[in-house]
């Protein structure tokens, strides 16, 4: 799990001795569930400077844009059919994020 790697790397760069909290952005369609992430995170930070830190998960809703008519819509499950023109070429504008946003260290 590389969320932990990113955290530890950055905290070291700062000369910090401990990470207190970590904020991540997780898109609705990132394929990562908050439960799985929490579980992996806890295990991954064990024994390191981020052990015991709080994981704050920000969910990002999925937003798709139709390639044909430009309509913006929330894709229904994974069906990316445009509700306006029924086009199939919509692309995701957001919803696939998996990023470490900030960390609190001391």
């Amino acid at each position, binding site marked *: 799990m590389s969320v932990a790697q990113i955290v530890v790397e950055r905290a070291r760069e700062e000369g910090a001795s401990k990470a207190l909290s970590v904020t*991540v952005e997780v898109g609705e369609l990132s394929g990562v569930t908050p439960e799985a992430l929490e579980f992996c995170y806890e295990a991954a930070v064990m024994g390191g400077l981020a052990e015991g830190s709080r994981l704050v998960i920000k969910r990002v809703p999925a937003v798709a844009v139709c390639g044909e008519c430009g309509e913006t819509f929330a894709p229904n499950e*994974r069906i990316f059919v445009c509700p306006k023109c029924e086009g199939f070429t919509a692309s995701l504008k957001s919803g696939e994020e998996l990023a470490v946003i*900030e*960390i*609190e260290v001391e």
Partner: protein
Amino acid sequence: MAKTLEIRKNVLAKNDEIARENREFFQSRGLAALNFVSSPGAGKTSLIVRTINDLKARVNFAVIEGDQQTDNDAKKIEQTGAQVVQINTVSSCHLDADMIKKSLGSLDMDGAKYLFIENVGNLVCPASYDLGEMMKVAVMSVTEGEDKPVKYPKMFRVSSALVITKTDLLPYLDFDVDLAVDYALKVNPAIKVFKVSVKNGEGLEGWYNFLLTLSDAAGR
């Protein structure tokens, strides 16, 4: 004294970095690396085994098998005589570039022209993880819904080829192959489609011819 550091680092960025190294490695060896993705049970292992058996007199293969648990699939591959390494992803539902990089050490790929990577059966996450492959091959069986490509558009968009398997079962099903192909082409007009049966061999010629052109491309 606590302070907050802004990071904004994409977790996948690290994966992409390693994938780039893998890709360079494959290219430097003229190895055509294919990442097979599908829903569970679509027929990836069967397709890989049959392909190797039918072509092994002409070319050598190496295989990386990704499964959450067990090495059942790796054992099936082993019987073909091809080199195989098993990765158990355990809690992860996909292979990532680092797992591939680490497993490359246990394969002696001398003489191999193809590296087949069987991903974990899942149409969601594997679409986001570049392994450094030359292309992704989506496998879909006629026992699934025709609308799979529309339900998982990302996977079909990032795949260069689609193998529709188990066509021997068509007489017993209502599956509309043309409709499935239509859907796939709608989300990815460039995708190359092959309709095959691993059981009776139907359609495999076209798939093999396609594969053989890939090795020429990689060997250049």
